[in-house]
């Protein structure tokens, strides 16, 4: 097991290096740069003035020299400074990571609270009204885009209740009431969509497991239906569900941009999108590296969880 983990960590570091090089190269292929993108519409600089501004930001230096400087900083925990705000990238990322993590965890909790009970119920009561309602809910969750739902929710909250979630992020350990009033509604909107996927996966996976011989054996031995499902079927049915949840969590860290925009809760996703639009290379590099670290770590955790869920799985 230790050998396996060590091997995966080394592979992960290699992936991170490749990601860092790829993102560093690709952002520089995009047309435009931070100097142009932050100009006020009324500004009218000459090419010489633009060149001076690029020189000031170090954008005129050779590609490999820029990459070497950046990687040397990364190795020392310094991701550089934003080309737009001139603030340290780590400082820009830190608060956004906190908000994104809050939103991702809350959304995932909401999703699991909805998906698991309904998915299990739909599988156990297959082709009954409960199953139909659950499946219909899942299709609705998949069909309604979260940006549409967020727009509708915020508009009607404002019209009917003259209220919208407060602006200005507060971590849950500092101000739990404010944190919940800020993030609960966005988390429910995001969670509803995630729940649809997880619920369908839970249902189909459980249905497959319930038809396995060992489940039939458990029933033949006179085990109670509840015991059969909870102790024998559910744990084995969770392997694909955990895989999906792991993927969803990774996607959540950067994939909630629209909801973040609408509820003015700026996480890493909106920071990254903004940086792409403004060609803020250092922020893009820092944010993508963060996502890569999370995805590598999450995949490792998911893989390790398989052996806990199914003791037949062994890593060497």
């Amino acid at each position, binding site marked *: 097991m230790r050998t396996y983990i060590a091997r995966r960590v080394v592979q992960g570091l290699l992936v991170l290096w490749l990601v860092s090089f790829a993102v560093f190269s690709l952002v520089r292929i995009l047309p435009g740069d931070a100097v142009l993108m932050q100009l006020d519409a*009324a500004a009218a600089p000459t090419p010489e*003035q633009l060149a001076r501004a690029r020189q000031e930001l170090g954008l005129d230096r050779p590609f490999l020299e820029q990459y070497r400087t950046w990687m040397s900083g990364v190795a020392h925990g310094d991701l550089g400074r934003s080309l737009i705000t001139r603030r340290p990238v780590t400082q820009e990322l830190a608060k956004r990571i906190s908000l994104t993590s809050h939103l991702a965890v809350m959304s995932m909790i909401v999703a699991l609270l909805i998906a698991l009970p309904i998915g299990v119920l739909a599988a156990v009561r297959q082709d009954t009204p409960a199953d139909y309602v659950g499946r219909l809910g899942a299709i609705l969750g998949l069909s309604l885009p979260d940006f549409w739902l967020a727009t509708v929710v915020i508009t009607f909250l404002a019209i009917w209740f003259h209220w919208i979630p407060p602006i200005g992020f507060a971590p849950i350990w500092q101000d739990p009431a404010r944190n919940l009033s800020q993030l609960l509604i966005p988390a429910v909107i995001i969670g509803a969509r995630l729940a649809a996927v997880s619920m369908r996966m839970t249902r189909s996976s459980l249905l497959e497991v319930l038809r396995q011989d060992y489940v039939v054996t458990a029933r033949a031995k006179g085990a109670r239906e509840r015991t059969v499902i909870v102790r024998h079927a559910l744990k084995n049915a969770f392997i694909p569900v955990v895989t999906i949840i792991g993927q969803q969590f990774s996607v959540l860290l950067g994939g909630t941009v629209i909801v973040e925009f609408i509820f003015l809760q700026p996480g890493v996703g909106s920071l990254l999108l903004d940086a792409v639009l403004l060609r803020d290379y250092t922020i893009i590099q820092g944010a993508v590296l963060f996502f890569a670290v999370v995805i590598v770590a999450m995949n490792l955790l998911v893989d390790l969880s398989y052996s806990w869920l199914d003791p037949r799985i062994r890593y060497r």
Partner: protein
Amino acid sequence: MKTPLSRPIALAVVALVLALASSSTPAQEKAPKTDAPDATPFAYAAPAFIKELDTRYPASPPVPPPPRYGGVLQFPATIRTFDPTAGYRPELALVWDTLTEWEATWYFPEVQRTPVIRKTLATSWEMVNPSTWIFKLRQGVRFHNRPPVNGREMTAEDVKYSYELLRDKVQYATRAALIKTIHVVDKYTVKFELAMPDPKFYLNVVDSLSPVIVPREAVEAPGGLAENPIGTGAFMLKEFAPGEGVLLVRNPDYYLKDKDGRALPYLDAVRIFFTKDRATDTALFRARQIDLMRVPTLDVLYALMKTVPDLQLYRVPSFGWGDYGVSLALDKPPFNDVRVRQALSMAINRDVVAEVINRGDATLYGPFPWGLAGYTKRADYSYANLGPNYQYNPKRAKELLAAAGYPSGFETELEWAEFEGWTYNEFVQLVARFWSDVGVRVKLKQLETSTWINKVGGAQPFTQAIAVASPIGAGPSFMDWAYLRFHSSYPRTVNRAGINDPKLDDLLSTWRQDSGDKRPALQRAVWDHLRANVYRITTIVPPHYRITQSYVYAAGNPYCWFPGYCSYEAKTAWMTDKAPTRKFDKFAQ
């Protein structure tokens, strides 16, 4: 955010007006309006709604109650950094001042002939000769009382330092480049030696493209102005929450007084939210979380007026920002032929464009702002004053194309992109439809927004034609709007259309050297030359809709409300006792 019905309604209006427009095409005939009863209630209601709005403007706004101290004003804006050396936004004028600033009244056509300059850090100026200007500074102005500057008095050394610091920053480069050297004459006097004689130089230090005055200690401190945001402005930055917003608090030592001699500003604080979505802005306004905002379209205004009936509307005629037009590759055939450009302009029915883009609530737009050509009444904004090239005349357009050697038209590509505040998708479809009526087959090509910005800004060439807004100025300055944009000596990043016309250059150079007497006539001559040559096809410009909650007022000009270039209105805003009570200890409250 558009109303849920806006797209089907827009499509219905497009279908209706195009069908009607294509059935009758005599020269100068106006497009049929959607006055007749229609299946789409808002399309039918729009003319009445516009008429209702017309009754509010230009009538004087209601007499506001006396100013009251206190309160926290909240509004949305998009600001990435509060550091004027890194990039400029009009909202930064709350913290940093320029030597002078425009009175907002120049928004009004009726007063655009004589825009008023407000004396902020400079109290007077004098032309020694066209290449040498002396500015006297206001005495007793202090920087914000924060370390490392600690409320030190602003002096001529600060002006010299700021101009020299910011001259290489792209945002200020156009203005700073006008100056060769700056001399400190005494503690409160600076002398500008200009790179080129300019008998109207004082007009070029007024607006937001002019360097703001910053203290050396703050710039040189660790983190620079981003972490030491110290200026002489009405507000001091208390907290900057990246991506979320900013909290500014009252500067107790601010030097400007109101007309009764009372200290400004009246507000305790200003909280700005960095919103990025229209739905968020409107929801914030409905929930009274923001007190003022700019409304993008008549649709949104209509929806807001239904749910917030007591809002105060300021319908501001646009000087020139936010127009809809098309730039052409002037150096390539067929667009290097003036007849082709004239034909393409004549092929567009601008009434229909106004109808589709903003329900008809828009004015015609020419080569540059009407006011700068001497058209100072709103009634002047007419087809008659734009001339035949701007009037819908497909028959004549076809004749011109045939005369230019394109009797069967030609194929072209029109590039465009989604851009916040504009509805280019509808605009380019209209243009393509109108051009196809005269035989010009248009292939629409949507670009990624950043690529489009590059092409529009002249940093990257576009292929044949591109949907654009006209290059703008920061104030009512002919230098910004016309001289820089049309003179062939400037590169494509400035003269974005790449115009190279010796006669136009002569007119502009004569204007530049003139002491002022002949400038109005020269500006009109430039207008006439440009409208004849149609270097850029311009169409319409919608007004600006600015709304406030019923408890918010401003001195200065109430029609020129934040967000925008009218910072004075935020400095002189006040709130009645009906305003919500808000804390201002920190941003997140």
